[in-house]
């Protein structure tokens, strides 16, 4: 076994020898990790006539790992191994020391760190043969330090925000006003405005961040140093944001008014004047005798007069007014005014009067006409097919008046320019 390892032969007559092996390894990872292991291996052997050997194994390992802001760790490992053996005749010593160190902790919200460290020290058997006071010392010392560290730092941040805001507004107003006069007037007004507004605000925001850092460090210190170091860093930043806004607004206003006024009055006058006068005149003759008066009605005169005067007058008047006003989003305005007047009067005596007056007027889109530069202009509307009866086109006069306006405005421009002195 001793031949398998480097051996030192120490002459007992020589001066005490000492050798110091210092292995210092320092590396620094990314910003989040700093590791500075320091190892000092000291082996001091001293032989004399009376063999004495002192082995000191001093390992100072400092491991400082610092993760993100949430993590800080300091490990100080100190081990001193001292072995002093004094053997006269035959000495066999075997020391085997194995220490495993494992530290796993999980902290924070989304961070875990596992540190595994295995330290193996072997002090292999030493055979000491002393013959006739000739000391033969075979010393084999092999130190294998395996420092293996695995550090994985994973950070995952997921932020998902879903916001949805929908605002709907529907306003419907409908009212009907109808009035009927007691006499002969009827008026009905109906308005049906409909207002609908819908606002939809839809937001989705998703943010996912994955941060992964893995460090594997293998440090084997024997007679040589083999240090594979693997560093893997993966940062994935994925963010999705969608902002959608949908606004639907629909406004429908229907204003429909019907005004109907009907006035009818009938006047009937009948005048009957009957005068009957009768006169009865009695003429009496009176005769007087000698002794007694005798009254003898002799004559009667009857006079009867009958006067009849009868007059009848019938007057009928009828007034009808119908107004239809329609106001829609496309500004359809139709006014129909109907004026009907019927007058009939007659007198039975003879004069007979019948008068009839009827007027029908239709005015389309009267609200949309205005004056421009002193000229009457009007807007022309295109109606949907269901209102085909109200279709309108651009008339020749609509075009011509624009030409006139264009010429008039040039004069206005020139006049303002001269006043400004431009």
């Amino acid at each position, binding site marked *: 076994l001793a031949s398998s390892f480097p051996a030192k032969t120490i002459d007992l007559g020589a001066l005490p020898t000492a050798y110091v092996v210092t292995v210092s390894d320092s590396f620094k990872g990314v910003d989040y990790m700093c590791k500075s292991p320091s190892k000092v291996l000291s082996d001091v052997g001293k032989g004399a006539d009376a063999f004495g050997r002192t082995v000191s194994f001093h390992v100072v390992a400092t491991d400082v790992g610092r993760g993100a802001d949430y993590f800080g760790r300091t490990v100080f490992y100190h081990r001193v191994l001292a072995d002093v053996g004094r053997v006269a005749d035959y000495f066999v010593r075997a020391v085997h020391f194995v220490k495993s160190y494992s530290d796993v902790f999980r902290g924070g919200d989304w961070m875990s760190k596992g540190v595994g460290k295995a330290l193996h020290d072997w002090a292999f058997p030493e055979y000491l043969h002393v013959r006739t006071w000739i000391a033969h010392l075979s010393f084999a010392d092999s130190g294998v330090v395996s420092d293996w560290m695995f550090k994985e730092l994973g950070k995952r941040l997921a932020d998902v925000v879903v916001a949805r805001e929908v605002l709907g507004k529907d306003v419907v107003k409908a009212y009907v006003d109808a009035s009927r006069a007691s006499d002969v007037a009827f008026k009905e007004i109906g308005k049906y405005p409909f207002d609908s507004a819908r606002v939809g605000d839809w937001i989705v925001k998703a943010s996912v961040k994955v941060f992964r850092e893995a460090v594997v460090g293998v440090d084997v210190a024997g007679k040589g140093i083999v240090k594979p170091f693997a560093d893997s860093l993966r940062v994935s930043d994925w963010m999705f944001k969608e902002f959608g806004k949908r606004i639907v607004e629909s406004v429908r206003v229907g204003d429909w008014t019907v005004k109907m006024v009907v006035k009818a009055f009938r006047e009937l006058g009948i005048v009957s004047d009957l005068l009957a006068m009768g006169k009865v005149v009695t003429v009496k003759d009176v005769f007087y005798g000698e002794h007694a008066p005798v009254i003898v009605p002799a004559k009667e005169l009857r006079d009867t007069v009958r006067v009849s005067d009868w007059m009848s007058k019938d007057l009928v008047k009828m007034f009808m007014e119908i107004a239809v006003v329609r106001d829609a989003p496309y500004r359809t305005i139709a006014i129909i005014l109907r004026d009907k007047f019927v007058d009939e009067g007659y007198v039975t005596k003879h004069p007979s009067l019948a008068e009839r007056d009827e007027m029908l007027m239709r005015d389309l889109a009267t609200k949309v006409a205005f004056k421009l530069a002193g000229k009457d202009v009007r807007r022309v509307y295109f109606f949907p097919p269901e209102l085909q009866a109200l279709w309108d*086109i651009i008339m020749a006069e609509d075009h011509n008046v624009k030409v006139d306006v264009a010429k008039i405005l040039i004069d206005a421009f020139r006049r303002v320019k001269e006043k400004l002195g431009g």
Partner: protein
Amino acid sequence: LSLDEKIAVLESLTEQMEYVSNYPTPPYYVLTSHNNLFVDYVATAVDLLKELYDLFKSKTGRELWDVELWIGMAESRAGMMRKVRFGDVVATKDHNLVIDTLKPVEVALQVIEANV
């Protein structure tokens, strides 16, 4: 273009405009060229109006908020006008936009003139 040059442009456009008649006396169609002349006319008129208002401000040192309102309205409406090509239908809105834009132009001119 200077103010005079822009006025000359307006005059040139109006000289190209023609009157139409009712059927059957030709020309009895409102052609696409008629509409396009007005589109150019309105754009030039709005531009000229803005320059006159700038001149007014520099001369008097005053600002007229209502004129700015009318100018903004005219600009907005003029931006909705379109030129049509042969075969396109001159829609009612093409006609309406012309008079709707010239109306604030006229009002703005009146206000400026009254405050000079």
